[in-house]
């Protein structure tokens, strides 16, 4: 039964991906893409990779879709959605053959792989030293904390890069449009009801992350979604990009992480946690990171400043 379910899911995933990539109409493609993210999250559930499923559900299906809807909106306003050309048939034939060859070689390589569960035993044997029950968190914030530090910086770099696109004269302004809603409408009610739920879910996901699936990135995404919801519902406006409070929220996670790494470098080694205090330090980093990730993601979705600041 399980295998039948898996086969059906895989077939759906491939079909939806094909529709998103090859169909006509960009809006339909975006709708398919959001469905695609959801199905991929289900695939991770079926593989019992719950942490990844959470990340995919929050980021892949949620935020990425919303980002692309934003780009669609901007292009629609500029009438830049058309043309959406398909390559000449000769190109298509060659591209098809090339991709078939690559897919075939990949399949052969996959069939030749040794299998097994890799480093699972090593991780489980070692994670006790960090006092963490969740193996994925142990890898993310323990064994490969350096990757995670760089990753949090990558996210911040993307925001700086987005800000570098600010139109002339609008630096220091407010990102995105000011949203309007009917005060007693569905949208405004959404904006009042959901953010508190998101807040609780976010805090829960960080707290759960040390022993059960969850963690800073998933939590940060849920928090960001709550923030953006409040903005979309017109209840709250985005801050000015030069706001000191905003800067503090953006920087606190990566800065704390880097500080812990630097202190470690001073005493034992880069990113070595103080002995006996591993878990509290990791938790502190996770909470700070969740906050920074939430702020960064929310502003990434909002885009570069669009309105002059100081005019509210």
């Amino acid at each position, binding site marked *: 039964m399980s295998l039948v379910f898996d086969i059906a899911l895989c077939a759906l995933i*491939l079909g939806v991906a094909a529709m998103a990539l090859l169909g006509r109409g960009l809006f339909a493609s975006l709708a398919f893409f959001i469905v695609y993210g959801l199905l991929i999250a289900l695939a991770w559930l079926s593989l019992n990779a719950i*942490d990844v499923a959470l990340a995919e559900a929050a980021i892949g299906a949620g935020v990425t879709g919303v980002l*692309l809807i934003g780009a669609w909106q901007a292009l629609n306003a500029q009438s830049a959605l058309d043309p*959406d*050309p398909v390559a000449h048939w000769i190109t298509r034939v060659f591209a098809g053959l090339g991709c078939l060859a690559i897919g075939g070689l990949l399949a052969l390589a996959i069939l030749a792989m040794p299998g097994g*569960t890799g480093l699972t035993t090593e991780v489980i044997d070692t994670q006790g030293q960090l006092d963490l029950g969740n193996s994925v968190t142990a*890898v993310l914030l323990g064994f490969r904390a350096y990757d995670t530090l760089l990753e949090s910086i990558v996210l911040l770099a993307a925001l700086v*890069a987005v800000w570098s696109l600010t139109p002339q004269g609008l630096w220091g302004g407010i990102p995105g449009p000011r949203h309007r809603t009917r005060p007693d409408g569905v949208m405004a009610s959404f904006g009042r009801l959901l953010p508190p739920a998101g807040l609780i879910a976010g805090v829960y996901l960080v707290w759960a992350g040390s022993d059960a699936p969850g963690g800073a990135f998933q939590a940060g995404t849920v928090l960001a979604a709550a923030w953006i919801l409040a903005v979309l519902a017109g209840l709250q406006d985005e801050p000015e990009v030069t706001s000191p409070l905003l800067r503090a929220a953006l920087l606190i996670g990566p800065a704390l992480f880097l500080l812990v790494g630097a202190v470690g470098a001073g005493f034992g080694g880069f990113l070595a946690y103080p002995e006996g205090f591993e878990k509290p330090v990791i938790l502190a980093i996770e909470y700070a990171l969740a906050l920074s990730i939430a702020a960064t993601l929310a502003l990434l979705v909002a*885009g570069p400043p669009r309105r002059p600041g100081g005019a509210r």
Partner: protein
Amino acid sequence: MTPSLLYALTGAGLIALGLYGFVTRSHLIRRVLAFNVIGSGVFLVFGALGHEGGITDPVPQALIITGIVVALSLTAFAAAMIARYAEDGGGGLDPDAEDAG
């Protein structure tokens, strides 16, 4: 056929499909979509090959989460850049394909 193999092969299929989409469709939004499809295909191969008997290797899991966040960062920057490019009158197509065609 084990689930591990099934999902890994699905991942390979997504990579091939995404690459085909990237090459044959030159609208920038489609290229970013294709980037995300290829990315999730790569992650699926990564995770599935470390899966056996209901357990998935936590190392790929952690790296995939990192990879998802990195892909999101790139997508966010790309989305903002595409929007700005269109506002500057550049249209919606990849300049590379435009020059070639």
